[in-house]
Structure formats: structure tokens, C-alpha cells
């Protein structure tokens, strides 16, 4: 076969067409999981095994944590209320809000997080599942009960803070995910495709995005069968859903000498082994991604 420039060009075009972005404005079905995203679980005081090497760690207080990630609908509601009170503003294609800043120590690679307005949500991000029209935020149809994504750490902090809550610390997050034994996954010791939403886990949403996948509704993996797709119950010992997979979750720790914020739990863009409870990840607090969300914690009443 003779190689001609035309053949080469065609091959290149074919290759590049394979690199096209996945469809972003896809209608997804509204799936009710039956899991209440307003519900909280109480984690009782007591020690637990922290990390891969299972260090017994005391956490001598009860606390509460949301049983699901914050959803698009919940976040839209927050933004509307916060816009009305002036708690957040629109600025340069982003929703911004005040953050009081961190102590800057000038350590190696540390960036200063000063007091001031920081972006909560970038509005020009194509993967944002909120719509802003007539001064109101609404969740896109079908995505109401999906986890809020494209939210920075400041945006997650702002949501929790606004309600009088907080982001869970790393230890609180890990105990809530693991319980008091040494399981690597919230549901137990092994991972199978239908326990959680991770890369190539073959969930029903992967077919809407040409096999690439996106978020699933919060609490989707609860043992129900949806449209012939049977899930297993992926809840943690305290009844929390999506503590592994779906979206990474911001946590609240501010580490001395580093500006990074921890992300926990793995996501729909990572392989199954990244869903192990102790998997380390972090990002600059200004990072917002289609695979990053959060949930809040609060002291027990």
C-alpha cells in the first residue's frame, strides 16, 4: 500500500476525531435513589484505625456528618440565598465569597492564602451542572440529586460555614468512612464494579457519556436496581453513601506549612484502587473539577 499525504492526513483526522470531548449537555434520566440528602449520621466517640497502616487514633467526641455529598440542588439553593444576603457576589465569571485566610509560614512550595474574596464556583466551566438565569441558580434537569461539582475548597467551606457547619477533618472523614475495623472500602474488604462509581465501573451513566462516565446521583449505590442495573449497598458502617467513588470530597484540615487541601474517597475518574479509604490526594484550594465535591460535618447536639 502506498502512503500518500492524503492518507496520512485522513489518519490524523481520524485520530483527532477520537480525541473530541465527550458530549457535555446530555439529558440524563431523573433517578430517585430514595436516599435523603438532608439526612445526617451520628458518629459516636471512640478510637478508630487511621490510614493504611492502621494507627489506632482517638476521636473522643460524637459528631454528625451528612450521609451524602451536597447536591447540585442544595448548592443552588445556598447560592440563591447567599446572593440575596450579599454573602457571595458574581465577579469575573465566578461566584466569589469571603474567606478569612490562613497563617502563612513561607515554607517550601507554600502559597499564601490571604483573607479576601475567593472563587467559590467558576461559572464558565462547561461541566458545571448549575444554570444561572434571571438572577437565580438552578440545577440542570436530571442533575438535581447529583453531587455538586466544579466547586473550589472555598466554595465547599463557604457552604458549610454559611449553615453553621464545617468541613469534616481528615480524621472525621476517615472514621465516618471506615468505622472501627480495618476495612479498605466503606462497605468492606473487596471492590466490585457495582459498589461505587469509578473509572470503567460500567454504571448506567457511562453510556450517556460515550463510555466515559460522569457522576451518579448521591446514594445511588444502595442495593437497588435501576433500569436493570443492580447496585450493591456501598454504605459505610455509619450509613454514609459515596464515601468511595463518585466525587473526591474536600476536607477541612489546614496543614501547617502547606496550602493544599485534602481530597478524599476517589471519584468516577479514578481506578478502583484509588477508592481505598486512605488514598492520598490534595489540590490547591482554588481547584474545581467535575470530579470534586464535598459534604459537611457538625458537632453533635
Amino acid at each position: 500500500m502506498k502512503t500518500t499525504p492524503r492518507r496520512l492526513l485522513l489518519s490524523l483526522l481520524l485520530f483527532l476525531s477520537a480525541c473530541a470531548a465527550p458530549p457535555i449537555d446530555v439529558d440524563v434520566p431523573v433517578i430517585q435513589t430514595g436516599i435523603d440528602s438532608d439526612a445526617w449520621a451520628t458518629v459516636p466517640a471512640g478510637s478508630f484505625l487511621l490510614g493504611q497502616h492502621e494507627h489506632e487514633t482517638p476521636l473522643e467526641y460524637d459528631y454528625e456528618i451528612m450521609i451524602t455529598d451536597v447536591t447540585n440542588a442544595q448548592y443552588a439553593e445556598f447560592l440563591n440565598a447567599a446572593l440575596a444576603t450579599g454573602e457571595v457576589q458574581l465577579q469575573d465569571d465566578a461566584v466569589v465569597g469571603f474567606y478569612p485566610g490562613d497563617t502563612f509560614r513561607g515554607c517550601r512550595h507554600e502559597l499564601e492564602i490571604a483573607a479576601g474574596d475567593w472563587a467559590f464556583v467558576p461559572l464558565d466551566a462547561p461541566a458545571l451542572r448549575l444554570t444561572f438565569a434571571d438572577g437565580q441558580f438552578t440545577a440542570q434537569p436530571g442533575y438535581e440529586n447529583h453531587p455538586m461539582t466544579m466547586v473550589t475548597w472555598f466554595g465547599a467551606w463557604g457552604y458549610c460555614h454559611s449553615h453553621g457547619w464545617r468541613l469534616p477533618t481528615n480524621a472525621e472523614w476517615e472514621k465516618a468512612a471506615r468505622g472501627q475495623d480495618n476495612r479498605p472500602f466503606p462497605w468492606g474488604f473487596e471492590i466490585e464494579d457495582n459498589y461505587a462509581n469509578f473509572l470503567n465501573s460500567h454504571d448506567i451513566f457511562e453510556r450517556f457519556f460515550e463510555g466515559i462516565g460522569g457522576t451518579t446521583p448521591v446514594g445511588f449505590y444502595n442495593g437497588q436496581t435501576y433500569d436493570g442495573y443492580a447496585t450493591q449497598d456501598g454504605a459505610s458502617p455509619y450509613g454514609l453513601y459515596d464515601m468511595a467513588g463518585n466525587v473526591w470530597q474536600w476536607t477541612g484540615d489546614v496543614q501547617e506549612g502547606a496550602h493544599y487541601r485534602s481530597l478524599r474517597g476517589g471519584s468516577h475518574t479514578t481506578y478502583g484502587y484509588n477508592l481505598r479509604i486512605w488514598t492520598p490526594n490534595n489540590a490547591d484550594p482554588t481547584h474545581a473539577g467535575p470530579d470534586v465535591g464535598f459534604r459537611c460535618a457538625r458537632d453533635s447536639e
Partner: protein
Amino acid sequence: MQFIISRFKFLFRSTKGLVLVSIALIALVTAFMGTLSGPMREWGVTSFVTETFGLRLLSAEREGRIILLYHTIAIAVVALETYLITESVPMKPHEQTQINATITFGYIITLIFGLKFGYFGHGFAFHGLYIFGLSLVFFAGLLLAAALWPWRAEFRVTDPQRAHWGTVDLERAAFFAMAVATLGSALFGAVTGSYWGNGHETFLAEDILREPEKTALQLAIIGHLHIMLTLIAVALALLVGRRFDFKGTLHKISMPLFIVGTIVITLGVWAVVPFESIAHIIIYVGSTIVLLGALFMVIYSFGKITRDRLAEQGIKTPTFGQKVAALLHDPLKFGMLWQMVFMNFVVSFPGIFMAVTLEKIFRVWPLRQERVLLTGHWHVLAGIVATIILLYYADLVGLTGRVRKVFGWVIILASDLAFGAALIYMLQGLFVSTWDSAPLANVTTLLMDAGLGLVLIALAALMSWRLIDLFKDHGRWRTELSEAEAEVLP
């Protein structure tokens, strides 16, 4: 019985046999472990293999398994390079025999019991045997360093074409420096390993990347893994130079650079523990010096293969096209050198770019994304080392005709396709957003799988050919054994 004894003699007493065994074992381990991840997992092959072979793959132990796997493969590569060194650098026959025998026992024990401990349940006797194997390899390294002692009277060099200092052969000194640096760097890891379960916990370096404070033991491990791969690459570059009979002015410049570069880079890596803040600068200086040494070797060797081919063709005043054709004529010889050049495009230059733009670009990405870059760059470097070894081996055993060309070009083109795709995969955050990255990741993964798959097919074909040959009474193995025996005889 004679059938087995004669094959055993070939496989374990001749350099070509020993190299063949080590490549075959690495290939088997690679093929087996390849079934445990990636698309094989999705296709259900992993479950089948796990059940069939009784593997014990606990999620919590993944990092430990990976570390054992790295060691078993790396130690086999160290053994392979040692065979090539004892064959090509002058030393006494009994020294060659002692070194080869010790390291062969060592790496095979390491490989068998390392994998047994990591993947088939934790009998701590197996871990002990694994350590014993590593110790034997270390002891073989001591013997090698002694055999390479540059001031040995019987191996003086006065040839004006070769780098020497007084009568000391500087090429021998470069091998010696590499061997001693490797021994010290192995200890660097071993000392930390001895604290395992006693203050040191298993970790992968890429996972603690952004920890503002690292322990001395963690820093030592990070240093150890970097310098060991570097020294494997230095040894291979020296061997390739030897294969091309590197000499002349460039040899005289290159060898001191190899010696100084190896010493500086090694001291830089050791300095990571006490002086982390300046260690990187020392490492950059050492790396630059070593890379310059390798560059001169590649320039000389490119010229040599071109000249040799043109002379073969009887062309006295070649055109540019004829020169290029002569350069590309033998893919095995060209490939060994080209892969070293290509390494700069997919490892060195991206590394420099990353270092320069660390704060502005890479530290803005999530850790998992930066981690891909870190794990990717050394996997690519290790992959390039492997392809150079394959090309070297195919040249050593004298592949001829069309098979030589097909094998050589498949290894070069397929691996470079895979490594190029890996580079795009690693740097995808520069080109696309997280949302858009999935299709790019899919395409580049496909290209990586296809490229590496082709390399593995070529490797499997080479190994199958050698396996079939072993069943022939007068196969190539017998010729190679006779050659080896003839060399030993006075």
C-alpha cells in the same frame, strides 16, 4: 540426561545463555503481572489468574506488592547488565565465573521468593530468602567492583585512542565508579529497609510528594529508587559504548564525564537526606555531566555505524541521503543509540520543564494528576532501558536479514509510539480540562497499550525462537556455547 546438562551449561555458564535466562524470566514475570491490571482486569483475566494460581491480593497490601515486584524485575536487570560487563570488560575468567554464579543464585532467589512473599501469602521465611537473594547480589557486586579495580597492573591501557590517566583505563574506571556507586546506593535502601516494621512503613514515593515534612527514612528511599534506576542507565550507556568500540577524542572527553557525573549524581542523591534543599542542584549538575558523556558516545557511534555501512557499500563520497540511509540501515545498532536520544524528549526535557514550571503549573493540579507524571516518567525511563537491552541482546546473538530489520524497527517504532503517548497522557492537564481529558486519556492509553503490546509480541517471538532452538541438537545455542568455551580456553 546429556540433553539437559548441555542446555544447562549453555543457559547458566555462557554469557549469552545467562542473558537469555534473565530476559526470559523478566518477560515471564511481566506477562504474568500484566494480567493483574489495566484492561485485563476489566476483561476478567485478573480474576481467572488470581483464582487459578491462588494469588492473595489484599487491597491494603498493594503498595508492598508493587515494591517487591519492582525489586524482583530490577534485580534481574542488574544481573543481566553484570553478565554483559563481565563479558566485555577485561577480567580474569575465574572472576567472571564467581561473579556470574553468585549473582545468578542471588537474583533467581530474590525473584522467586520476592514474588512468593508478595503475591502468594506472607510466609516470612520467603521474605528472609528474598533478603538472602538480595544479599547475594550485593556480594556479587562487591566481587564485581574488586574485579573492575582500575589500577590493576594486568589491565593497563596505553592505547592513545582510548581515554586513560597514566596507565589507568578510564573506561574501566567509569564502570568501577558505577559499580561502587551502585553498591553504596543499594545500602542506602537496605538500611532503610532494615527499619521496616520498626519505624518505617511501606509507602510509594509519589504518594508523599506533597508532604511538607518527610522523615529521613522516606528521603532515603526516594533517593534510593532514583539513583538505582539512574545507575542502571549509566551502566547500559557504558555497555553500549563498549559494543560500538567507542574510542578517539570523544572517548577521551566522554569517559571523565561519565566518572565525574556518576560520582556527583550519586553524592547528590545521598545528600537528599541531610541536605535536601541543595541536593537537587547537585543532582542536576551530575545528570548534565552524565548526559553530556552519553551524548559524545552517541555522536561517535552514529558516525561509526554510518561510516561502516558506507564502507561496506563502497561509497566514498556519499550524499546526505546515502548517509541517512546508512545510519538507519541496521535498526538494532541505530536503535540502541536512538533510544538514548529519544529518552531526552520523553524524560529529560519534560523533567526540566516540570522543574522550571513546578509552582505555576504542576503544583496547581491535584496530587493524583501530578502523581501520574511522576510515576510515568520513570516507567518510561525503565521502558527505554528495557528496549535498549532487547536491541543489544538481539545484536549480540546476531539476528540477521529481514528478521533483524523487522525486530529492530518494531521495538523502536512501537516503543516510541507508546512512550510518546505516555508523555501526552502524563501532561494532559496542559492541553485539556479534567472533563475533556477522558477521551484523550482513552486514546493515549490505547496507543500505549498497542505500542507496548507490539514490543511484547516481538519479545515473545524472540523468546519462542530461542526456546525452540534449545530443542535442536545443533541449534544456535550450541554454537554460542562453543564460542563461550573457546573464549575461556587459553
